[in-house]
């Protein structure tokens, strides 16, 4: 624990793991935009196929991939049900007392569920194949044009990097403090919500005080090693695009382009349905 922060990284050593993190990040952003644009089942299916294809290339078991969806199951259910019961439409399917379910409601609920799941899947591939450190470096690199308008890009990236470093330490510290207070008779799982919250004060206060102390000491150590957010720094690790990044980028662009073209120009979905329908 702590070796792999957030426990998400799945080290299967595929080519996708070796892709430039910036490219992956941009692909995810484009993907999210794309998902918001599609409205028909065939395109949803196409994107699903895309995601599964990438997962297979990443050597990530589909079981692991779909486990990430578990976290939003509740959200999906709630929004689907709301849409199911409250969408008005033309075709009434179920009428029971005051409950009215329309065909449009069912469609909307299903599409919304699919959209949410899709929104979860591809970004999950990102976190499964990219270490938090790589992501931080990618963000720093992508943000570097902002340096021109005096945004402290490196400072922000450093903050993220330090946060990543400190998370396992602070988690361990929280545990230690909880044990120490338990040893003095504290109980963290009895009583109602308010009582539980109050019980956390003897844990949160030392944690915060400790965090500030750490920050002070770290700042001193950084000063001692001449850190300055203003002066010119060199960068040891440089991210370089490789040929595989180009191919991956073209592949993703192709898929997304097809989706957009489908929506606005040619109706691929109708063609496919006509073929098989």
């Amino acid at each position, binding site marked *: 624990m702590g070796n792999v922060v957030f426990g998400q990284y799945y080290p299967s050593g595929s080519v996708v793991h070796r892709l430039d993190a910036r490219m992956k990040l941009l692909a995810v952003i484009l993907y999210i935009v794309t998902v918001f644009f599609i409205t028909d089942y065939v395109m949803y299916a196409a994107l699903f196929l895309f995601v599964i294809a990438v997962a297979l290339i990443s050597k990530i078991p589909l079981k692991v991939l779909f486990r990430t969806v578990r976290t939003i199951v509740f959200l999906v259910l709630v929004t689907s049900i709301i849409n199911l019961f409250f969408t008005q439409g033309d075709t009434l399917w179920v009428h029971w007392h005051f409950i009215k379910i329309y065909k449009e409601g069912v469609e909307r609920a299903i599409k919304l569920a699919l959209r949410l799941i899709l929104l979860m899947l591809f970004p999950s591939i990102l976190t499964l194949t990219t270490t938090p450190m790589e992501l931080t470096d990618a963000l720093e690199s992508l943000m570097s044009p902002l340096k021109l308008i005096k945004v402290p890009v490196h400072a922000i990236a450093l903050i993220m990097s330090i946060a990543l470093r400190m998370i396992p330490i602070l988690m361990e510290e929280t545990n230690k403090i909880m044990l120490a207070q338990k*040893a003095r008779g504290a109980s963290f799982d009895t009583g109602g919500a308010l009582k539980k919250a109050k019980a956390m004060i003897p844990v949160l206060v030392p944690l915060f005080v400790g965090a500030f102390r750490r920050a002070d000491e770290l700042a001193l150590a950084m000063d001692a090693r001449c850190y300055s957010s203003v002066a010119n720094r060199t960068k040891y690790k440089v991210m370089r695009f490789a040929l595989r990044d180009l191919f991956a980028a073209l592949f993703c662009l192709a898929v997304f382009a097809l989706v957009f073209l489908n929506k606005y120009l040619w109706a691929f979905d109708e063609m496919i349905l006509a073929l098989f329908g």
Partner: protein
Amino acid sequence: MSIEIKDLSYVYSPGTPYAAAALNGVTLTVNEGDFVAIIGKTGSGKSTFIQHLNALIRLQSGSVKVCDIDLTEKKPDLKKLRGTVGMVMQYPEYQLFDETVAKDVSYGPKNLGLSEGEIKGRVREAIELVGLSYDEVADRSPFELSGGQKRRVAIAGVIAMKPRILVLDEPTAGLDPRGKKEILALVKKLKETSSPTVLIISHDMDAVAENADKVALFSEGKVEAFASPREIFYDDGLLSRTEMDRPAVVKVVKEMEKRGVVLAERPVTRAEFIAAVKRWRNG
């Protein structure tokens, strides 16, 4: 008022790829009045072991009986247990939280459900017992105090619960020589007054030799030996097997043996060594 451990085992994160066995069948009995030093390399299971004594860790396998509280039962009386076994963790000053020293020290007694009057009395007693002046520090914020004072406040917070068994995890860690002496003197005083049974985790073999009645040597989750300092520190095979260091005194004795001089006794403390050397020279 004893501690009986039988076949205690513990695995962290069982059933996951991060599973790690910390204890592998520990059997140990500590009697009332014992001063036990727990030694062993980092990672040998010492911390995991002591955290079972006051049920900070839930029992997975084996049995733990502290006084008349049996942790194998479904719902052991944890409040009573934590009032019986007082535990001072490493760097306890990092757990202080309340607005005033008096309030922080009263946390434990409050959790035990004692009366206002009783709590007040215990808080004053505990603060004085650790060598601080109640009138000077009671209303101050614990965060204003020096490192050494903070540690004493943290210890006061534990002894205000009047535990019959006191467990300390490296109580002298990070302290300068004077601080170390004072804390060890405090522990001895507590042993003589309210907490007759003491268990200390320590890496300081010299301090262990000087103070402990018995030493429990942990290695790879097991108790390799539980005997007097003399028996443990003179067992060459044991020490090399467990990669443990010796007190300086024993090292000197071994060096003397290399040069053909064997002392009649097997000293572990400074006083014993000096007496033995004098006897050898005069005899």
